[in-house]
């Protein structure tokens, strides 16, 4: 196996593991921008992650239902262009607090000078 092929396979394997659990972060990030309906959340996630995170609609709906059930998200109904009303999701106070704490503990550490230096190629 050539090094290039091996590298691609290793990267793919690592990314598969890494991406598990990332969807929550990206959904919350998208809602930080404002209220969104499912298609807008999907577009945000896929565009802003440069296509590294893809989400099927069913997975997204399932995740949103779960977050709604645990009170971190809520939605309001607004008229769509056609068809039924759209659900515009937004983060509740609990969701905002959860997101803030998660980012503080897990994301912000990547912005410390020491880690930033290590991340430079």
């Amino acid at each position: 196996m050539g090094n290039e092929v091996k590298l691609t396979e290793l990267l793919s394997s690592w990314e598969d593991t890494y991406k598990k659990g990332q969807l929550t972060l990206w959904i919350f990030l998208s809602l930080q921008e404002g209220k969104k309906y499912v298609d807008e959340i999907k577009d945000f996630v896929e565009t802003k992650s440069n296509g590294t995170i893809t989400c099927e609609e069913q997975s997204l709906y399932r995740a949103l239902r779960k977050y709604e059930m645990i009170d971190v998200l809520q939605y309001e109904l607004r008229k769509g262009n056609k068809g039924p009303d759209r659900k515009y999701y937004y983060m509740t106070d609990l969701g905002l607090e959860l997101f803030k704490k998660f980012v503080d503990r897990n994301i912000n550490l990547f912005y410390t000078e020491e880690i930033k230096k290590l991340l430079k190629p």
Partner: protein
Amino acid sequence: MKTITPYLLKFAVAATFLTIVFRYFLSYGIDNKSSIIIALCAILYGTAMFVCGWYFGRKDGEYLPIYDVGFRFHACTYLVHNLISVLWFTFNFNSSYEQLQIIYITALIWGVLLIIHLLFYLLARKNSINNLYKKDLFD
């Protein structure tokens, strides 16, 4: 808190239909003193209910992974089966050889098992937040 999901309702509809068909053939079999019909309809009913529970339960988990160790579907089966059985007698669809008392005794014994299941469900809730399994919340 959402516990009555679309797939639980679909299961209830399917269980209602199957129970009515079962009661019909059971009464028919008893009236005709046919042990083959009685055994066959009981086996088919049990199998069909199991397949329905498995199918809708799986779909329900994909829709929303409520961590109830199967209690909602069990309670739904209990309610549907016993309610239809009582109504069967109320409207005199039963065989003349059937006794309402048997329905009550069955409901009582089954009710004890349901309560035991309820206890397991209450124990399982310790590992859940708003009825969702903690470890599956952000998977």
